[in-house]
């Protein structure tokens, strides 16, 4: 078991390195970069002082060197003008667009993103699992039909549209300010009780909107999985033993039907960050999604690179978690390791 974890950690590190190369070169693919574009703009405007500052930045970040050297400096495998200062050393670089360190820009957005999406995730599971169990055990009943139709509606309604409607009514009925994750007045203020309360109130709508599509999809998949498992002979064995129906259901078919969902954790985590961009834009949530979009558009290379690396790391961590949980959950996998 420890052997497995160690082996996986080593492959994870190598994979991350490979991804970092890919990410960097894809970002550098379009001609030019943020600074040279900016310099061209400034020259056209005749602002000599600003040009000098930009040229200083170019030298400071080694943007005048070959791309492969820039990459090694970014990762922290090669000394830059300021010595080793890359991802490996915990220096995430400079955002040209915001003219601040990336760490500072991204700061709150990172964990707010996680808060919003974890809330959505909890919502999805808490709602979908009971409904799916009901739906599978009462197949073709009126209740199943209602849930099925609602599920399809949930799948079909575009999130941003629902977001606008819900925001409107939340404002009208509960007096909630529109957009953001807390009242605009708290921006830049330290996290105290009032700000947290405001955050919780503002979380409701994004959670619903982001979670809705996932809930509908999960009900459909869970129902199908459960139906497969309910037809398996071991379910009959459990009934023949005299187990009460719900206990038999939860212990055998339900547990069996969890495997594909556990295997999906690896895909879920990165989806948390990048999946809700549209909704975040519409609701002007201070999350990572919109930042990434901007950074890519303006070739703000260190900013974009960092966010992409963060998503990649989340993916790998998710995969590791799902593999470990599968090993713990399923003896067939666990004993196959021995």
């Amino acid at each position, binding site marked *: 078991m420890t052997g497995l974890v160690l082996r996986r950690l080593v492959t994870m590190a190598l994979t991350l390195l490979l991804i970092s190369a890919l990410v960097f070169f894809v970002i550098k693919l379009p001609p030019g970069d943020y600074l040279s574009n900016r310099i061209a703009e400034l020259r056209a405007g005749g602002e000599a002082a600003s040009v000098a500052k930009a040229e200083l930045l170019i030298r400071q970040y080694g943007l005048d060197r070959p791309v492969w050297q820039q990459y090694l400096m970014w990762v922290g495998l090669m000394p830059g003008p300021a010595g080793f200062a890359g991802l490996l050393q915990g220096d995430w670089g400079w955002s040209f667009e915001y003219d601040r360190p990336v760490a500072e820009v991204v700061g709150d957005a990172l964990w707010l993103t996680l808060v919003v999406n974890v809330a959505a995730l909890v919502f999805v599971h808490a709602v979908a699992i009971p409904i799916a169990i009901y739906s599978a055990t009462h197949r073709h009943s009126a209740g199943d039909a209602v849930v099925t139709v609602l599920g399809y509606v949930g799948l079909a309604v575009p999130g941003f549209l629902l977001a606008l409607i819900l925001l409107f009514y939340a404002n009208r009925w509960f007096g909630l300010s529109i957009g953001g994750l807390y009242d605009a007045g708290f921006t830049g203020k330290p996290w105290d009780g009032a700000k947290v309360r405001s955050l919780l109130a503002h979380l409701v709508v994004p959670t619903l909107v982001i979670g809705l599509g996932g809930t509908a999809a999960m009900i459909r998949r869970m129902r199908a999985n459960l139906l497969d498992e309910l037809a398996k*002979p*071991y379910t009959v064995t459990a009934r*023949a033993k005299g*187990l009460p129906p719900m206990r038999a259901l939860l*212990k055998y078919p339900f547990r069996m039907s969890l495997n594909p969902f556990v295997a999906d954790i690896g895909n879920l985590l990165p989806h948390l960050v990048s999946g809700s961009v549209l909704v975040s834009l519409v609701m002007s949530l201070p999350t990572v999604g919109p930042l990434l979009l901007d950074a890519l558009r303006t070739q703000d290379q260190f900013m974009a690179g960092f966010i992409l690396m963060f998503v990649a790391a989340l993916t790998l961590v998710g995969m590791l978690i799902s593999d470990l949980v599968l090993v713990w959950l399923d003896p067939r996998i666990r004993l196959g390791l021995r």
Partner: protein
Amino acid sequence: MTPLLSIRDLRVAFRTETGPFEALHGLSLDVMRGRTLALVGESGSGKSVTAQAVLRILPRSAAITGGRILFEGQDLAALPPDGPAMRAVRGDRIAMIFQEPMTCLSPLHTIGDQIGEALRVHTGASAREAAARTQEALAHVGFPDPERALRTYPFELSGGLRQRAMIAMAIILKPALLIADEPTTALDVTTQAQILALLARLQEEDGMGILLITHDLGVVANMAHDVAVLYRGRLVEAGPREAVMRAPGHAYLRALLHAVPRFDMGPGERLTPIRPARAAIPEARPPTRAAGPILRVEGVSKTFTLRAGRVWEKPRLVRAVSDVSLCLEPGRTLGLVGESGSGKTTVSKMIMRALKPDAGRVLFDAGSGPRDVHALADADLFAYRRQVQFVFQDPYASLDPRLSVRQILAEPMEIHGVPAPERRARARELLAMVGLEADALSRFPHAFSGGQRQRIGIARALALEPRLLVLDEPVSALDVSVQAQVLNLLKDLQAALGLSYLIVSHNLAVIDYMADTISVMARGRIVEEAPRAALFRNPAHPYTRALLAAVPDPSLDHPLDFAAVTGDHSDPARWPEPYRLGLDEAGTMVAVEDGHRVRHGAASGRRAA
């Protein structure tokens, strides 16, 4: 004596898209305390539905529409199926074991957990008590190490042990009635004999009534006190075993008795299928025959590597096949017999070139001299594929459900470049050969029964006019009522087309009916080989004898000797001299009579010298 279970005028109906379908039309039968009632019939006759109705675990689409099920003073048919009263009966007073011990146990829970659960649900026992009682039950059903067994998962056990675990689960609360639904159908004959012996012993000790559902008349003859024969949801014959089996009154049971291969069949006697298929086999096209054997397997061995879990661990090696030699004359049938795990399927895969042997050669002679199959390349290999075809065990899994029968039959011809008009004509001809109507061409596999599917599989194998068919358990997945049909068809095709067969099976009766010469495999080695008649007249090797002794015969005059089935027969170290083999010892084949050879251990050779 009042019966333990009394079913009166039971009716069960299924809801289907074409309206209600009645599966049981007023069934009445009694199970007595301490006696076994065998419920006999082909698939679809309503046997399993009866069992499910008694336990009230019918599928959701089925319902009891009439009649009573009287058991210990209650009418089970009147109870709500999932109510507390019915649940108290299930698993406590009436327990059930099923056909597939693998799929009937959850792979995610230890067998200790699953067995003890019945106890905990019904008696509220603590986890410790349950574990202790489970351990006793496991010891009772013959687990070698019951304490360790508590913590094992079903997939770590052999088929026989899994079924023992199911039985332990069923008997842990000492039920009054045990329902066994085809409990040994999925097992090897030797394991079957052990499980049957176990059930007989448990019945003797606890005096429980057993409702034994089976299609195997050999099992009936050895286990039942009373017999009830079901046909299309109706009872057609019932009574004590002696009366029913010695003088079957109903035509259906008589037909059933003649439809399964038996050892006491006369030479050249044909099975009589219950529903004969009319096959139009074309007049023989005499094949150019090779002078020598069409297939020679010379000393092939195969070792599999089990993946090691840890990096620094050495991978484990498993010797699946050691130094196996076979010889098949053109137009004849060679039978390869052995228990599961004996290596017989690995041998057939090496002949098909699906696996490469570590040592030895496979020589095939298409009429132009023997050539090593594993040295063939390009055009020669392509031609070889045409000559050798495979018929699979499971007719459900071996046909692509998304292809029509026409596509299934045409695919091999397409691969081998047969022009389209010829393909269409040949497909019709093939269907006629296996006794199916031409309108089957446009239908899909799910529209056919198991027997019909197996005939489609045979037609596909014949599409390229092969010389050799490898038949891997060709009838073991089929209902008794159609086994005779398929076996007769194979015999007729062989006679007409001059085919050579290699038939792989654990069913000695099938091998006896089909084969000219027989090789017996144990632990990856051939232990005995002989012409059919010699092997059955004079089996020399203890393993062969154990296999033969374990086959339940439908005749009441040849009962199984339960005391003789111990499970020792498959361990080479426990074979009596001169057959005993040490670890990794090869031994030598010694001639018993003309063409009949048996493997002796080296120890006996030294003494003789």
